């Protein structure tokens, strides 16, 4: 009886935006008479920090200080359409909506400033809330004064709106092929899990996870790390602990409370080492891709591979509970070989359970 160390890893990819697209996010922005910025977006913040990220995008797209920007995503009367906070679309699609709206506001600010300064708009830039002439920074006007002039002299509400939308990608039902890209971007990640398996109890403990994420551009690295670490513990729950149906496929003995459902908690948290790569997306806001959902996808296979590394058995029914690990150790099952076929797991296959060899699922080409 002993504890065995093992290491496993996995490399994954994950799309941004609804599969097949067609999922708009809209935003509109107005300036108060002192240049302060009101952003109206329908993007729900589910705790991931989209309000923060969108505020950062607007501040830089306009060239004003971050604390000038106020975000209102509170209701459907004042906010425009957002398809929703899912499909890892908040930063990319919601972010592009506020960025494009901010660019239109920026054009209006430059137009008014151009009239006030009597300098062509193309020769002006905005930084830290000031419009200056390129190459002659002494010629300048504060965005607050531009907004005041617009409101009280020119009779204009400086505002801008936009929609981020990629057209729906039809799929050929016979072949699954598409004509246009059915996503907004693809993000990539790798996870290395170091674990320890107790061959007497079957318990698996994750000691450390090294995780690398290419997010295109980390708009806010702290929030990206939050996603990486939150995703890590969620992926650990998937790999080792959680099960809505402990006797699946039976529906018996489900856990109806926290004490009866084995979710991960802080005691399960391994040492985490996070690496953020920035390989910019072609058309995301400031090069951003996404991270939200993929953050819990790489750990379960990394853990399964680490178990094999540690004790030489495969656990391919999730989660890798002590019972399953012990059963795998006991059975020491080898793959069946038929010519060049190497067949694992045939005892849990469709053909092993179906009364007619799974006829309805196979032979789909007639």
């Amino acid at each position, binding site marked *: 009886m002993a504890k065995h160390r093992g290491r496993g890893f996995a490399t994954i990819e994950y799309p941004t935006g609804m599969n097949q697209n067609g999922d708009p996010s809209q935003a509109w922005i107005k300036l108060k008479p002192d240049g302060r910025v009101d952003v109206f977006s329908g993007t729900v913040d589910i705790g991931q920090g989209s309000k923060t990220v969108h505020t950062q995008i607007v501040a*830089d797209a306009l060239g004003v200080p971050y604390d000038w920007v106020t975000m209102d995503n509170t209701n*459907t009367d004042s906010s425009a359409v957002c398809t929703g906070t899912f499909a890892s679309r908040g930063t990319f699609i919601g972010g592009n909506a506020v960025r494009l709206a901010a660019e239109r506001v920026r054009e209006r600010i430059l137009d008014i400033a151009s009239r006030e300064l009597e300098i062509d708009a193309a020769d002006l830039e905005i930084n830290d809330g000031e419009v200056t002439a390129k190459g002659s920074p002494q010629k300048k006007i504060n965005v607050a004064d531009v907004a005041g002039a617009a409101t009280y002299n020119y009779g204009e509400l400086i505002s801008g709106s936009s929609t981020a939308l990629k057209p729906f990608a039809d799929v050929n039902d016979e*072949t699954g092929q598409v004509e246009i890209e059915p996503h907004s971007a693809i993000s990539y990640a790798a996870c290395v899990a170091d674990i320890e398996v107790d061959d007497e109890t079957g318990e698996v403990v994750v000691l450390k996870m090294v995780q690398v994420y290419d997010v295109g551009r980390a708009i806010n690295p702290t929030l990206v790390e939050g996603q990486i670490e939150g995703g890590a513990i*969620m992926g650990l729950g*998937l790999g080792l602990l959680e099960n809505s149906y402990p006797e699946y496929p039976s529906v018996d003995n489900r856990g*109806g409370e926290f004490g009866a459902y084995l*979710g991960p908690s802080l005691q399960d948290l391994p040492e985490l080492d996070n690496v953020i790569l920035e390989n910019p997306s072609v058309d995301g806001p400031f090069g951003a891709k996404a991270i939200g959902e993929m953050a819990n996808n790489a750990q*379960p296979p990394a853990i399964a591979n680490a178990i094999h590394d540690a004790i030489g058995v495969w656990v391919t029914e999730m989660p890798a509970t002590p019972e399953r690990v012990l059963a795998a150790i006991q059975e020491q099952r080898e793959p069946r070989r038929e010519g*060049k076929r190497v067949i694992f797991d045939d005892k849990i296959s469709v053909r092993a359970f179906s009364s007619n060899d799974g006829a*309805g699922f196979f032979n789909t080409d007639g």
Partner: protein
Amino acid sequence: MKAVGARLPRYDGVGHVTGRTQYVDDVRVGRVLWAKALRSPHDHAAITKLDTSKAESMKGVHAIITSADVPRNVYGHLEGLGVPGDEPLLADGEVRYKGQPIAVVAAESEEAAMAAVDAIEVAYEPRPALFDIRTALDPDAPQIHPWGNVYPHYGPYNHRRVRKGDVDAAFDKADFIVEGVYRPQAIEQMPMETQVALCVPEANGRLTIYSCTQAMYFSMGVVAAHLEVPLNKLKFIGGTVGGGFGGKVDTATDTICALLALKSRKAVKWRWTREEEFLVSSTRAAWHIELADAVTKDGWILGRRTLTLHDSGAYARFSPYGLTKHAFHHSGAYTIPNLHFDGFVAFTNRVPSTAMRGFGVTSVSFATETHLNRIASVIGVDPWELRLKNANRIGDTTGNGVALQDPSTVAVTLAAADRVGIELGAEYRQMDSEPRTGALLPEHLVAQQRLNAEAH
């Protein structure tokens, strides 16, 4: 200072950690009625009797709704994407999972509402139930829907297909065919905030709905469809959610509160208990994935055959969408030019599954990434090198034929190897994502490269 790239504090963080953020359950609008549901105790049954009259006459009860009170009882969340509705808001004559709502009471307290639920007269005739998706198409399987036990609307097919390249030729040519079965489980989204909604009927005839939805406009569309009202009759207030993870994309409580508010003309709140959140809210789906990969002894993946079964539970909800996403990503972060994929959304008599973080792809990442290590162990190739060799590069095409513009399989894999001190051969250490040439453009990838060049 540039804001993008800065470690700025969370916009709403102080409110969250000092208890000042207002979630739906914190909203106070004066007196409210409380909702409680009559739920099916059976996995599968006909409803032979449903009589709410005694319950309606009880003290403190203001309204009870059944399927007869819903203007449009069956509305599918994805009808806009061509997925027909199959799930009644309130059960109509039959129940297909334990916990399915049949009637909902609005009363002056949660206790009064629960007492009225208990007083509803209901009788059932149990039917055989189906739980194992592997047997869903067996001739003797219990039938869940009139159209059968799998979702039938992928164009003319009852399954989502991918057909790319020449899989038979790839399998003929392979040195090894490695086969495995992978079964990721169902889990709970487990948010701290349970499903909750508060609906206030306004003096001007509009309904204000305080919602924990992850998607205000989407949920507003769902409520409007069930109520058959235009969008300007509704105002959703939300945007701040106490955890969703995909479980608050489904519209669980908003529509019922709206119907009860209309019927009672009072504000109505429905706050699910922790037990309801665990036992009758949607879960992540369980999956069954059978993979067979055609590989060469030096570590090229020539082709893949896949059968995926997705346990949708009793109704389709978002599952047809999730399975398509799964199909589109079933070759993972690698280029595999010959693919044959069949995926089925199979119905069972369990709580409908739905979106959860990684929807459709978490399952296939587990299956394919574990499978790659099995391949490495069978053919005696290093698992890092196996991945780097087959890694997606610029111009490689996905399973559904899209040329990749900015893949990072090589970059993240090398960065991870470097971080943990894995020693790789020079030809691997120096890899990048540039288009394939030389030894990294073997015969089986030449045709893909040529087709890609012609298409662009």
